């Protein structure tokens, strides 16, 4: 779910080397090197900013706290990481990545840090360079990259040729995601419990956020309904009782990995909640490697009929999740692709129906040959 982006990432902002040691990144780079060899890229540039940085985080562990970062990864030789931070902040930035050479790329530092690094690539012929994440780069920075590289280097978009991060999670990533799921579960339970005691949706959301942050979450996003679940809204500071059920959303990021969850709690069990629970059960039951995502969408929508999917889901009943809150594929009617083994998905079901009521529920699952391994699921929907 899209929510308001906070101005800065706070919380536990560290490289979790006990869980993601340096050799993990060697293994990840091996896959990248193979793609570089196949495509003739002696260098790949990986961009990420404070909004979207999955590829950068996957390959370098660096997550921009503000502005942007860019890894300059050669096939041979030493990597460099540029970040849009003052030189004052570099000692702290160096603790966040395995890349030893971290430089400021902000303002006048750009040409000092970016341009000389390419002197290693001498020659007469044009040289192709792969790029990851450049779709998110602001035009002004893109122009700086082009100006620095000149005509001798040709940028080639690598995002589709060699997708990073891969949809299938590595074993250590699954460990990270299980940890994120523990935090989202604790936060969602607080969300529900707080509402049961107060019937104040925004108080409940803030209590949930506090729980997540006290468990070392780096980022927490919440949405709540102030109209009984018909729409969702970001924080408004209305700490007051609101009639109707609690319908809310929370996402947490722990050591780079996201988990998210919808929370619906009713004083009396509504038809919408029953329908949503049944549809979610059906969707989970169909989650097997190879299942086309369009078929899964159809399964969920059929289970909800005659009610329609909640508008806040924008026509999707799930998607991948990991270093990005929104990873491929989207489970839409016209969605491409199929479920992959050892990928992690968030499955999201909702109804906004004048007759049945309003409900939003979700589960996070790992797909396995035996079916869905449920990592976490929305808490109880009943008030007691």
């Amino acid at each position: 779910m899209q929510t308001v982006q906070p101005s800065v990432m706070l919380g536990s902002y560290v490289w979790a080397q006990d869980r993601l040691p340096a050799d993990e990144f060697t293994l990840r780079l091996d896959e990248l090197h193979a793609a570089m060899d196949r495509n003739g890229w002696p260098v790949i540039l990986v961009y990420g900013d404070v909004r979207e940085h999955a590829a950068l985080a996957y390959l370098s562990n660096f997550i921009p706290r503000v502005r942007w970062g860019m890894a300059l990864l050669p096939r041979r030789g030493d990597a460099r990481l540029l970040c849009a931070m003052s030189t004052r902040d570099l000692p702290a930035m160096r603790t966040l990545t395995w890349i030893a050479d971290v430089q400021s790329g902000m303002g006048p530092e750009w040409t000092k840090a970016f341009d000389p690094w390419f002197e290693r690539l001498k020659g007469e012929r044009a040289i192709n360079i792969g790029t990851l994440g450049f779709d998110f780069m602001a035009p002004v920075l893109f122009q700086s990259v082009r100006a620095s590289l000149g005509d001798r280097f040709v940028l080639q978009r690598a995002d589709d040729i060699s997708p990073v991060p891969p949809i299938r999670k590595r074993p250590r990533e699954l460990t990270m995601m299980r940890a994120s799921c523990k935090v989202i579960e604790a936060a969602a339970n607080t969300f529900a419990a707080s509402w049961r005691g107060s019937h104040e949706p925004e108080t409940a959301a803030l209590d949930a956020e506090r729980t997540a942050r006290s468990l070392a979450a780096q980022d927490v996003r919440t949405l709540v309904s102030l109209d009984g679940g018909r729409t969702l809204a970001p924080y408004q500071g209305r700490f007051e009782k609101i009639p109707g059920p609690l319908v809310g959303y929370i996402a947490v990021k722990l050591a780079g990995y996201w988990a998210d969850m919808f929370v619906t709690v009713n004083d009396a069990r509504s038809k919408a909640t029953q329908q949503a629970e049944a549809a979610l059960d059906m969707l989970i039951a169909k989650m097997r490697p190879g299942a086309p995502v369009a078929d899964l969408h159809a399964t969920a929508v059929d289970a909800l009929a005659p009610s329609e999917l909640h508008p806040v889901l924008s026509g999707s009943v799930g998607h991948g999740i990991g270093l990005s809150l929104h990873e491929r594929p989207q489970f839409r009617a016209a969605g491409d692709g199929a479920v992959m083994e050892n990928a992690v998905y968030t499955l999201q079901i909702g109804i906004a129906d004048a007759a049945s009521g309003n409900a939003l529920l979700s589960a996070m699952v790992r797909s396995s040959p035996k079916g869905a391994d449920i990592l976490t699921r929305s808490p109880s929907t009943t008030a007691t």
Partner: protein
Amino acid sequence: MNLQAIVGNNVRLAEATRHLHDQSLDGLIAASNGLNNFLESNAVYVLAGVRPIGASAVVLDRDGRSTLIVTPAWDEERAAALSSTDRTVGTDDLATTLQSVVGTHRLNVSRTVSIGLSLLGQALVDRIASALGTLPNAADELARDLARIRSAEELAAAERATWIAERGYERLLEFARPGLREFELAAELYCFTKKLGAEDNFLLLSASQHNLAVRAAGERILDVGDIILAEITPCYRGQFAQICRTTAIGQPPPVVREKYAILQDAMSEGLTAGRAGARVADVTRAINGVIQKAGYGDYCRPPYMRVRGHGLGITSDRPGDIVERNERVLESGMVFVMHPNQYIPESGYLMCGEPVVVSGNGCRALSARQAQLDIIAV
């Protein structure tokens, strides 16, 4: 619905419309990438009064008619209730909808200017260029120039944000103790200020026995003898306000007090120098002068400090960074944070800063109590 805010935002729309007339332009497209950077102007917020969730745009024509486009589509109802534009459209495809709205307003793109397209991602900008046939000329400074002087409502919001920051710092003094992890303290502060009405908080908080700089909270466990650095920056109704504070756990060595007094003196000089009509460079030199006089002139540059203050988003970040190369003239009603934060070899990095409003007599701190070296008894 905040009627006062809407009136204020209508003033910005009126000013922007006047600008279109003055420059013989057809229209304006103001875009936002959905980020609320505390150092940037968010043109969509300036013109519509809405903090967007995703990429968004305001289209304004020379007749003063305006449309807000928000993504995702489901956010339309909330945005429409808050927006000071004539119309609000929700969409999941900003480029295509922008093309349609530009057509509705009958804008000739070659006689239209843009704000903030340079902040969007390259891929989205390419789609917009394709949809419109070309990109409008950039007028990226326009929103921050229009909003450079805080309106009465904006100043009141900045004062409220400062009040929240000060209450947040009081909470830090109550809550911080040896054994607590940095992120636990940050969590408490962040949620505490949110409960007081802050919609966001650019919060940096870290501790060490000898700090090199302030940084984001980590897993470090607070200990006796630590110096806690806190940059507390709540946002209230679109106005960020920042206080910078230094707190010792237990009695600090006398040298820390002695060096902290240098920063306080520098702050005092900066407040006096920051009168309307002065240049930002003059304020910077006044601050640096005190630090140079104390023998630390070589440290008045990165990595020992960053800037002596800066503007505060999300309406206008004028007057910009408080640095010697900034020749911008201060005007009454401008708001920025002044902070002579500094690394000093004997004490480590120390922080001292207040949000200030410019007046003819100098800068007035919005905070009720200016920074001092505080001590948490152990």
